């Protein structure tokens, strides 16, 4: 099957400093791809290339091609605003807007003009909350401020907020690292459910998490992809000694 995202020879510079060195990666549709690697190796940087979030950083330069759904997203024709609606993003720390739960989820439909009227918007918000598995918990407090939720709920709210933009692809940068084990389990369960309709790329520091939920794993080291393949394969018989060292906990 044709990969939905294919990165070719991607290099990223922050000013003079090179953070990614010619990375190649194909990401198949409706699968979960995990990006692992030691801190500072460029996982987040790579993730941020995929929806051009790097554009918002002054002095950041991206080279190489990234093809999403058949188009080079760094083509000047491509509208990064639209791209980001298609390629949603969930961050490490839950970052709900200081607005009501409803307004948080309705944010993307409103700015993108997805709903024609109030009813449609209501439906969209409820459907997104439902998909994020949060609806039951917040049904009767939709107009409370989003920051009043617990950490795990906040992170699922952020996922719901991303879903409401109706993306095809969701990027997650260590979505569980600020959560306790129970909340983590819930979010993981949610991610697995979402796989059916979305392509998910997740950065994680937890080997177990990567092994549990992902189908494909890429191992980053010092700005390069050292190893990429089926998750079982990477974890059971890594080809590269650095990968082996990392997953067995010898460095990283």
């Amino acid at each position: 099957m044709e990969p939905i995202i294919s990165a070719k020879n991607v290099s990223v510079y922050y000013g003079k400093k090179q953070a990614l060195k010619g990375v190649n990666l194909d990401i198949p549709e409706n699968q979960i791809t995990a990006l692992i690697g030691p801190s500072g190796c460029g996982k987040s940087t790579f993730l941020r290339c995929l929806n051009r979030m790097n554009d918002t950083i002054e002095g950041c330069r991206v080279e190489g091609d990234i093809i999403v759904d058949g188009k080079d997203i760094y083509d000047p024709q491509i509208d990064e605003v639209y791209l980001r609606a298609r390629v949603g993003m969930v961050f490490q720390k839950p970052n709900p807007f200081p607005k009501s739960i409803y307004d948080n989820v309705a944010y993307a439909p409103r700015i993108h003009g997805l709903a024609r009227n109030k009813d449609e918007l209501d439906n969209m918000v409820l459907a997104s909350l439902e998909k994020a598995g949060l609806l039951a918990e917040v049904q009767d407090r939709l107009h409370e401020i989003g920051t009043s939720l617990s950490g795990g709920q906040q992170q699922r709210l952020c996922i719901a907020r991303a879903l409401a933009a109706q993306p095809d692809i969701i990027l997650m940068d260590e979505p569980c690292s600020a959560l306790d084990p129970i909340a983590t389990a819930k979010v993981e369960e949610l991610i697995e459910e979402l796989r059916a309709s979305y392509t998910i790329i997740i950065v994680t520091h937890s080997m177990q998490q990567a092994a549990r939920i992902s189908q494909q794993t890429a191992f980053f080291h010092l700005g390069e992809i050292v190893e990429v393949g089926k998750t079982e394969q990477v974890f059971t018989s890594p080809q590269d000694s650095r990968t082996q060292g990392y997953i067995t906990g010898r460095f990283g």
Partner: protein
Amino acid sequence: MSFLPLIISLLAMCAAGYWYGSKKALSSHSFAGQQNAGRPHLYGLYVVIWGVIPPAILLILWGVFSYSSIDVSGGIAGKIDKVVFPSLITVAAILGLTLAVRQISPNLRARKTVEAAVYCVLILASTLSVFTTIGIVLSLLIETIQFFEKVPYQEFFFSLNWSPQMALREDQVGSSGAFGAIPLFTGTLLITLIAMIVAVPLGLMSGIYMTEYASKNFRATVKPILEILAGIPTVVYGFFAALTVGVFFRDVGTFIGLDVVSESALAAGVVMGMMIIPFISSLSDDIIMAVPQSLRDASYGLGATKSETVINVIIPAALPGIVGAILLAVSRAIGETMIVVMAAGFAANLTANPLESVTTVTVQIVGLLVGDQEFDSAKTLAAFALALTLFAITLCLNVIALLVVRKYREKYD
């Protein structure tokens, strides 16, 4: 012996004491090898402290004495004032110095004493600001109470008529003047409002552009340029308002057939707004900067444009801080003096028409106090009542603003 020579001789004595104390400590053989004796200059300071404290206490007593017996010229009190105190002070200083010098020995813990004295001085210095506030409140309050003994407060706060000019003879009709401050308050309000209409959009938009759009280089050049506006003395703005802007508005008015006086509230307000722009822009700049990057990321990650992010996320999140900044700016505008003294009118007009001339609280304070100096007249006292009102209003605004801003900072720290 008058004041200045006395002080100079005291200082000279202290210097001598310092020199002698240090020398004695240095030369004394028993100091060699003493570990915790401290360095000789500490002994010098030790001597100085004993040379300063006794005369200082006496000096304060002297001040109190000469203030309380101010009318008694000549006589016993005059003698005490002129002769007894200065000589007492000199004797006290000499005694203190000699005693301290004699105490110098390796066993003396000079550092402890010196540090205690330094500590006291530090505390005294930092309480000065509190005493300044107390001084402001007391001085304004005393005169204001006197004012309200002459003019009922109902008139001051509720009457619409302000004409403090006294008639020439006491027994003339209306000799007490009229002290209804409402027109001053409305005038102040009108000019402040115009200033805010100019400054808030310009300042806020500049602040937003600086934080969200401008490149580092743009910021580094433009920000200092805008800050120049804040550094220009208000008297310069006043001159500009009176001579350039006021005349310009009048001419434009004539051109389009409007009657604009050259001392219009509009001119003063616009120029005051101009002065406040950098104030608002740099405050809102700080406040917008404090909005966490994660909120911006979240919004951009959902495909929002910068303007959508600013309007829907950043401004709502920064709103308390921005409101605080605006309150501070309002309090500035209310208390601003020179621009209105030079560019607004002196006549108390009760009007909301920005093309007419109005007067403000500060203008009247200046008008009432500059020039004649009869101190207990209602006219002069009125200035203090106005100033107290001004002080109270700006204080409230500042306290609220500081609280709001502090709350806001805590939220994102």
